[in-house]
């Protein structure tokens, strides 16, 4: 229910019905934070159901390629979209991602405000 009906048409992508289906053979697994407001909009039965069905944990990650990385822009709802063993696991590059993200945002703002690229 969180996916708009026309997503596949708009972005030329594949839409899967389950996490294992989507993760299988992936090079990169990118998770997004579940906004709690979505819960009250009747889109999901409960957080618990979401975590069980759609949460990513280390075991589901094993379906990805051995060298796959796990990304998430943060902040992570631990135990909801990512389990603790996924977030802190060996594939996770989340901390680097967030650090890089701060730098990229600062650079974009700098350029928009009229700064010049070095």
């Amino acid at each position: 229910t969180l996916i708009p009906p026309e997503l596949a048409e708009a972005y030329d992508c594949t839409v899967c019905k389950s996490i294992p289906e989507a993760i299988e053979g992936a090079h990169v697994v990118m998770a997004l934070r579940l906004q709690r407001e979505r819960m009250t909009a009747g889109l999901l039965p409960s957080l618990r159901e979401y975590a069980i069905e759609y949460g990513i944990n280390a075991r589901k990650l094993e379906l990805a390629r051995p060298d796959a990385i796990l990304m998430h822009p943060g902040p992570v709802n631990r135990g909801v979209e990512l389990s603790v063993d996924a977030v802190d696991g060996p594939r996770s590059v989340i901390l680097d991602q967030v650090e890089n993200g701060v730098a990229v945002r600062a650079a974009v703002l700098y350029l928009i405000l009229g700064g010049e690229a070095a």
Partner: protein
Amino acid sequence: MSLHIRGGRVVEPGTRGVSVRDLFVDETRDGLRVSFEPIGEHARAVIEAAGKLVLPGLVDLRAHLREPGEEYKEDIESGVRAALAGGVTTVVAQPDTKPCIDNGEIVNFVRRRGEATAGRVLVAGAVTKGLKGEELAPIGEMRRAGAVMLSDGDNWVRDAGLMRRALEYARDFNLTVSTHAEEATLARGGHMHEGAMSVRLGLRGIPSVAEETALARDLALATYTGGRLHVAHVTSARAVEMIRDAKGRETDVTCDVSVHHLVFTDKDLSNFDSNLRLVPPLRTELDRQALIRGLADGTIDAIVSDHAPQSVLEKDLPFHEALPGAIGLQSLLPLAMATELPLETIVARLTTGPAAVLHSQTLGLLAAGDIAIVDPAAEWQLARLTILSKCMNTPLTGRVLRGRVDVTVFGGRIVYQRDG
């Protein structure tokens, strides 16, 4: 003063057809006479109309004149002035004013304000008190005060039992109930059509089923009660099919389409122009083509302007925060003419079509003495200097419009003449 309109291409759908003729408008002892033959010696003002179209004054079934209550956006006088400049001599004022038109007193107020203008203002009264969808408004009282139609503005009557009563009750007063078919929980939070475009633009969408489910209910109720239903501003292809089907089965239903929906689609929203934030929303090209086909085969009875003035305060905002609507009285005809439809069909859907929805035998015909003389080749633009409405919220800025009204006649008198 009598008029002699010389050498124009007279278009009167259904009765006199299309022909190049002179037209004579004479005030006689027995009333106004409009004919192709001059009868009697009258001093006549001559209007040269060679190369121009001579049409019955247009009838617009849906315009929000904002008076009473929001006169900073528009009032009845300025709205009619804009209408006459667009060749529209009859406007049906929507009841979503503040206070809304839900009793005889306010119907009277609007009607009298309309009489003080140079055109004709007909009043649509509310279906429910306060447009709240809870209790029926005093329909009989509004009818006696002169209301010609019922509408709850841009609100769908959610309570099916209440809508049933409205259709039954109004039927006995020979009034049509107009519905804005939009199921609120399906449309909730949406700002534009739900589709590939809304995904790309990141805006929440209003799916076509919001219109279709509401419409299905209203058509079923209209069939069951034998009441008169009018469906306002149809936008989806499936909705057109449903109405075509219902008409085929003799349900008493009519419908209209808003002129902007004939020309724009959701693809035009990529620059987030809040002037294209409309309710109901612009849908896809396939829907637009279905609307055109619906007009061509008569499934759709009328084209309306849905003139909805919004000031800069309401429009100069992020797309999803802006209030919906665009002005449209002045551009109604040229926009309609910019579509693929043949001229006679366009004129019919702006004159005899709306007149039939109102069950009027006199509107939309030249005999009423309401005439618009149009230069079909004139190119112009809607801009600050040309817009007569109090508000400027139009998506047509910078767009060249072809077709401009030169002269508008109302009841045999010239009420608008283009300068220059």
